[in-house]
């Protein structure tokens, strides 16, 4: 396999290859969309690791008027069946070997269609054949057959878009198992919010290589990836993303400039690196670099002394120093690892990149609030969570008084209220939080920094 790849590389210019690829993905979008539509599919569950097929399936659903259901990858079989029941799926696109066919057809009889995505290594096997005595009514095909059964010219043009019809909704599961339905308008508001909430000079551009190092079935990385695609950045897809607990492994072979990752991975990177970098000379250098971040408000420059320790820092990608921005999120109501402001400040030094720490909730596509890209401040050290910055441009926050916490002229406090979204195209926080908030705020106390004092949202 690798020889073919090397030959390809020698034979084509990279820009040429990429153009081919985009056209090829367009063809996949069309053919898969048509196939599902012709076979009567309506609610399509995508059960894939991060891959080009994932992206193609997502857009196929958008173009061919299908409801998309993002099923978290690599979950126990009982969970998957439960999620399929909850989402009333009729079509599943799954990676071969990840999806036990007989068990699922038995316990989920409403399944009508199954599309296997077969990897190179097991292409020769006959995946279309349904084992005798199982399946029955399920229409099984493979992604690769659907593509290769058509003429190379078929499906190269995207269908004409009827502006009056909106694509169907996208359903995603929060780690707590809650099923959330996003309208297309929610998703684009999220994408728009993510793009415009970063200063113009730091936005994602076509020069960036964006790597989602977290599963795309989580809405936050998905929205950021779509924002990167919309900004014409190059996007790298790695199937270990979200499963590998190690940032270095997840970024192997490429040199990303922007990554989105989970807080547990970053926390692990931090503890491992901190354990390696514990000499007293390094502590002194680290103190100076932290001072540069916190006191002077600039990213520390590499010096002769700090370069001594480059080998002990995490190696992100093939060209160290390329990474410029890391997105990481805290998931409200899920079991995610807290990152304190000190940890984030250390990680800025270890990774040499800016970090945006975002607060995400189940019902908001993208972030609710995120720290400013230039905000390197460290809190007083008593807080478990770093401060989250301002709402993104597609969200506004409004607090309602509770019996214990009332807004006064000095402080804004209360719970996030439920009504108000001015237009239903925007998910504001208030639509999202009543049920999550007690456990969430009791656990952490969300803080927004406003006029150098904290606003604490309490249940």
């Amino acid at each position: 396999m690798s020889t073919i790849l090397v030959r390809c590389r020698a034979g084509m210019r990279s820009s040429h290859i990429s153009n081919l690829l985009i056209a090829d993905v367009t063809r996949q979008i069309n053919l898969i969309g048509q196939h599902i539509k012709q076979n009567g599919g309506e609610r399509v569950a995508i059960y894939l690791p991060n891959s080009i097929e994932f992206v193609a399936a997502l857009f196929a659903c958008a173009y061919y008027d299908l409801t998309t259901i993002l099923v978290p990858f690599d979950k126990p079989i009982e969970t998957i069946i439960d999620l399929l029941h909850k989402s009333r799926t009729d079509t599943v696109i799954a990676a071969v070997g990840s999806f036990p066919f007989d068990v699922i057809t038995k316990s989920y009889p409403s399944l009508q269609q199954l599309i296997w995505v077969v990897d190179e290594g097991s292409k020769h096997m006959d995946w279309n054949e349904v084992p005798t005595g199982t399946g029955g009514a399920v229409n099984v095909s493979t992604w690769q057959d659907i593509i290769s059964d058509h003429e190379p010219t078929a499906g190269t043009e995207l269908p004409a878009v009827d502006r009056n019809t909106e694509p169907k909704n996208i359903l995603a599961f929060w780690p707590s198992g809650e099923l959330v339905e996003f309208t297309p308008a929610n998703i684009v508001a999220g994408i728009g919010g993510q793009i415009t909430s970063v200063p113009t000079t730091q936005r994602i551009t076509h020069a960036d290589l964006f790597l989602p190092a977290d599963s795309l079935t989580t809405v936050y990385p998905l929205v950021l990836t779509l924002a990167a695609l919309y900004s014409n950045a190059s996007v790298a897809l790695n199937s270990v993303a979200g499963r590998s607990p190690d940032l270095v492994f997840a970024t192997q072979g490429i040199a990303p400039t922007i990554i989105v990752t989970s807080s547990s991975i970053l926390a692990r990177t931090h503890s491992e690196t901190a354990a390696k970098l514990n000499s007293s000379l390094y502590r002194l250098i680290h103190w100076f670099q932290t001072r540069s971040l916190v006191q002077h408000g600039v990213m520390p420059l590499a010096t002769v002394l700090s370069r001594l320790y480059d080998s002990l820092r995490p190696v992100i990608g093939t060209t160290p120093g390329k990474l410029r921005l890391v997105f990481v999120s805290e998931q409200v109501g899920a079991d995610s690892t807290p990152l304190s402001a000190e940890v984030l400040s250390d990680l800025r030094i270890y990774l040499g990149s800016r970090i945006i720490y975002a607060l995400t909730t189940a019902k908001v596509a993208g972030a609710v609030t995120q720290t400013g890209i230039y905000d390197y401040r460290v809190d007083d050290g008593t807080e478990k969570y770093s401060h989250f910055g301002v709402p993104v441009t597609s969200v506004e926050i409004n607090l309602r008084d509770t019996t214990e916490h009332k807004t006064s002229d000095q402080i804004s406090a209360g719970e996030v209220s439920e009504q108000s979204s001015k237009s239903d195209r925007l998910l504001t926080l208030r639509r999202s939080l009543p049920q999550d908030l007690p456990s969430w705020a009791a656990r952490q106390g969300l803080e927004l920094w406003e006029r150098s004092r904290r606003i604490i949202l309490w249940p």
Partner: protein
Amino acid sequence: MLKFDEAVTGLFGQWDIYTTLIAGLLITVFAYQVISSRDPDAHPMLLARQAHASPVRQEGESPVFRSHSAPHGIPLNSGLNVKDPGDSKWSRGRDGDLRDVWRKVITGGVDQEGKETGEVGRILTVLGTENIIVHDLSKVPCRNAE
């Protein structure tokens, strides 16, 4: 005047190697400060006042907090600001939907005048670890291109 002259002469008469060292050190420190000082990435005032609270609030509610990039009085950012060919560049774009995201991937970047710049992004599939696929991006798409 004579006294002043004597004072100055006395001062410089005491100049020795240590004075040179101290003066040299002072100048070095000052020069280093000037050369190495950098402006903060964001003005501290901007960091201290990140959210923008609405000027009035309802009884029993907090003000509405928004980002400075989406000030009160204008609608929140609701989409991708898609401009179809032929739309005025001053008009507000459509919110768009996912289909417009892929359309943008195909057409590539557009400049302010709405002309295509040909900046098309790439999608790379990274297969396996570095042992199987060597550290090069350009060949990765071949899997799909062959």
